[in-house]
C-alpha cells in the first residue's frame, strides 16, 4: 500500500512516497512520475523518507525513466532513504545509475 503526495517547491515537483511499493502498487509510482512529466516539470524530487519498502517492481519504474529523462533533459533526484531502502537500490548498483541525495537540501543541490 502506497500513498503518494505531490507538491511543488522552487519550480521542482516533489513526489513523496509513503508506505510500501510492490508489484500491486508500482503502477501508482509510474502514474505519479508520468503525471509530473506530463505537466512539464523538468526537476523532479522523490521524497523517500517515509518509503518503508520497495520491490523490484518499483525499482523497475525508476529504471524505465532513465533514458527518457536523459533525452528530454529532465532531472530526477531521490532523497531521504532509510538504510534498508538504500540497500535495495545498491544490491544491483542502481544507486550508481540514479541520483540519490541524503536529504532534501542535498537533493536540491544535485538537481540544479
Amino acid at each position, binding site marked *: 500500500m502506497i500513498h503518494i503526495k505531490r507538491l511543488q517547491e522552487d519550480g521542482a515537483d516533489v513526489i513523496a512516497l509513503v508506505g510500501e511499493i510492490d*508489484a500491486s502498487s508500482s503502477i501508482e509510482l509510474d502514474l505519479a512520475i508520468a503525471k509530473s512529466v506530463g505537466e512539464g516539470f523538468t526537476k523532479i524530487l522523490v521524497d523517500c523518507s517515509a518509503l518503508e519498502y520497495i520491490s523490484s517492481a518499483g525499482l523497475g519504474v525508476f529504471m524505465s*525513466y532513465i533514458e*527518457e529523462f536523459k533525452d528530454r533533459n529532465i532531472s530526477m533526484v531521490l532523497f531521504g532513504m532509510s538504510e534498508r531502502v538504500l540497500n535495495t537500490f545498491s544490491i544491483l548498483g542502481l544507486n550508481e545509475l540514479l541520483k540519490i541525495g541524503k536529504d532534501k537540501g542535498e537533493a536540491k543541490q544535485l538537481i540544479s
Partner: protein
Amino acid sequence: MNYQYKVGCSIENLKGVRDFIRTSLKKHAVPDLAVSEIVLALDEMCSNLMIHAHHCNPDDLFELHIHVTQQNPIVFEIIDDGTVFDINQFHEPELNNIIHEKRKGGLGIRLVKSIMDKIEYQKSSGRNICRLTKSVNFQ
C-alpha cells in the same frame, strides 16, 4: 523451527507474505539487513509465481515454508501446483538493456540470484517445490 503460510495468488496478498517472513525471521536473531534482503527476494519469487504461473487467481493457493534454526542455512520453500518457471534457466537482461529498452521487469531475477545462495526446483507428489537457501550471520 518451521513456519508455514498459505495464501491465494492475488498480488494484494504480497504484503501479508512479507509480514510473515519478517515476523518469522525476527524470532531467530536474523540481522535486519539480511531480513530485508530475504523479504525482497521472496517477494519477487512469490509475485512471479502469482502473476506468471497463476495469472493472479486468488483461488489458487501456494505455500511458503521457512525452516530456521540457529544454524545456517535458512531454507525457504515455495510450494504450488502451477507451471514451473525455473529462474536458473533464465538469462536476466543486462542492466544497460533494461534502461535502453525502458523495461520495467527483468531486475527481479537478478536480485533473487544476488541475494540467495542457492535456488533449486523439485517435484514431489505432483507439486512443485522451489527451495531457496541463504546463510546469514545470526546476531
